């Protein structure tokens, strides 16, 4: 078990709560009908993004998925700018061009959500390649799902990253499902982490209802990468507490199995533990939540009052100007 100081523990907690409350707010706002596009929330997976990104700084890169809000927030993106993006506003992180599935923040090394399943894997490894070429100690993390683990590009990139000893960490968020398809059906191996052996890199599975377990595993992988020892594959096991996307009727799974998955929520056990250890108190929990609520209120207000992009600008931002 990690021997973390109070501040780190609190930061992990607050970061997880920020994601959870952000996603719950997005869920409510989305239902009102004025948020465009498709939204996939990160509810239930918070421990992964938070525990991994706790080891990263702004020079480090991450690439994300269609389910990217948690990665953004954990990497330090501004919730208000994110909300403005979700609402398609000119003030959004991507000026409203991308939305939930294509949100990015290059200043924070956040190389983008990706609506192509598996689409971010090579990009993050590219970030790691750039770091290696420059001789910096930056690392890169690519988050992807169990579904994405069957995309060919993962195989290619794990192989290439291994032979070049790139500072990249492969984080597979195994929530048991790819849309309606269960991982037991789609994937020919018991532990996705077992595939690491085929690439000569360490592979480890971790129960991601335990944020501290993920923290340790991720810390070791980031250290390895930073010190030039190459990639690691981490399989983080989570329950998919919600539907695949906002609005998913979920006809393909039973109420019982969903309840079972919801019981793997990473937040309550961590909260209990921090309460027991005196790191949190009922009142500090309330005040953290209140603080986040203030940020989210302001964020939603910012988003909804921001201007839409001008239709006349539809052709802007396709090409970088020639110097």
């Amino acid at each position, binding site marked *: 078990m990690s021997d973390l100081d109070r501040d780190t523990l609190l930061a992990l907690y607050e970061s997880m709560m920020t994601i959870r409350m952000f996603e719950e707010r997005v869920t409510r706002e989305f239902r009102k009908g004025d948020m*465009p*596009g*498709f939204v996939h929330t990160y509810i239930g997976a918070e421990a992964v993004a938070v525990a991994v990104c706790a080891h990263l700084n702004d020079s480090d890169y991450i690439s994300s998925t269609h389910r990217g809000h948690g990665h953004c927030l954990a990497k330090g993106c501004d919730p208000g700018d994110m909300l403005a993006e979700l609402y*398609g*506003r*000119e003030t959004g992180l991507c000026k*409203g*061009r*991308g*939305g939930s*599935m*294509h949100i990015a923040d290059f200043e924070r090394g956040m190389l983008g959500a*990706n*609506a*192509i*399943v*598996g*689409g971010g894997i090579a990009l993050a490894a590219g970030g790691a390649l750039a770091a290696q070429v420059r001789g910096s100690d930056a690392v890169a993390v690519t988050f992807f799902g169990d*579904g*994405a683990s*069957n*995309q*060919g590009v993962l195989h290619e990139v794990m192989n290439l990253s291994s032979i070049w000893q790139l500072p990249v960490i492969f984080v597979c968020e195994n929530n048991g499902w*790819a*849309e*309606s*398809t*269960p991982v037991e*059906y*789609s*994937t020919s191996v018991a532990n996705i982490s077992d595939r690491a052996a085929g690439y000569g890199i360490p592979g480890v599975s971790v129960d991601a209802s335990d944020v501290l377990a993920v923290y340790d595993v991720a810390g070791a992988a980031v250290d390895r990468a930073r010190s030039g020892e190459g990639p690691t594959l981490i399989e983080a096991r989570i329950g998919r507490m919600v539907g695949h996307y906002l609005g998913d*009727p*979920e*006809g*393909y*799974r039973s109420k019982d199995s969903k309840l079972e998955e919801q019981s793997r929520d990473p937040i309550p056990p961590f909260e209990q533990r921090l309460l027991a250890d005196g790191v949190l108190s009922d009142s500090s929990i309330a005040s953290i939540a209140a603080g986040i609520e203030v940020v989210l209120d302001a964020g939603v207000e910012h988003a909804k009052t921001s201007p*839409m*992009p*001008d*239709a*006349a*600008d*539809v*052709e802007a931002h*396709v090409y970088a100007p020639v110097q």
Partner: protein
Amino acid sequence: MTDRTLSGAQAIGEALFQAMEQDANVIVLGEDVSGGAGLGEPHEGEMGGSFGVTRSLFSAFGPTRVRDTPISEAAVAGLATGAAAAGIRPVADMMWSSFTPLAFDQIFNQAAKMRYMFGGQATVPVVYRMAMGAGLGAAGQHSDTLYSLYTHIPGLKVVVPSSPYDAKGLLLSSIEDDNPVLFFEHMGLYGQKGHVPEEPYTVAIGEASVLREGSDVTIVAISMMTVKAIDAAELLSADGVESEVIDPRSLSPLDVETLRRSVEKTGRLVIVDESPPRCSIASDIAAIVGEEAFGALQAPIRRVTAPHTPVPLSPPLEQAYIPSIERVLAAVRSTLA
């Protein structure tokens, strides 16, 4: 009977069902085509693909012929191609056309070329179905049309239905066809309602449909742009301008004859296409008709297309991306000026 009405999604689902009934060699495979089908049991609440199109198939035809797949577009397209070459008739659900780039080698280097490279011995009766198009706010990596890319590729057929009736008949033709067919289902088609006979029937690939006759200008519209073209034609009619609206229905092969004849009559051509303009089907039709009906043309051929950009999320931008009735009207009027 004659007023039996189905949505585009239902019409496509019915075509698949009937094709599977008629021919045990027809199989359906793709991500979530049933949904949880891999668990073995037919079940309530099947997903049936992203738009519910394939919902009825698993219960009726079982796991050997209706196969959920992992997220592995290259393998899905590649196995479908190989299985077709080995004599069955797979219908691969590629979900959205924007995902086909992951399978592009299988379609471009394998399926399309196999018959030619092998001197005619290969027969590759595979259909790749896919949703396409902007309008749902799905943004950059889901909303591409891409039929222009596939039309460039020799060896492929490219089908773009714009009504439930055509969708059913063209899909049955596509499944019967002995060549690889890219079958593009526009977002807007799924919800559209229209007359669809219950019995199986085919609509020939390669025959355009004249949706509206007119003598002043020809408007060729691709896929659901037909709706804009028809609406524009009605508005123009009020001004005394009679438009002939043509839906090519398939882009490869293209029914050049029908297009040429219409333009020889009207002397004017506007093409409405939701893809970006460069090397697009709009350019292609303009080039072909510009050559074949040169003498008849009384005005430059106008192309009303998406801009040369990916598809944006934000609603005002997405609306600016999709060709509008106003732009169609302006283009038609410019040919009359």
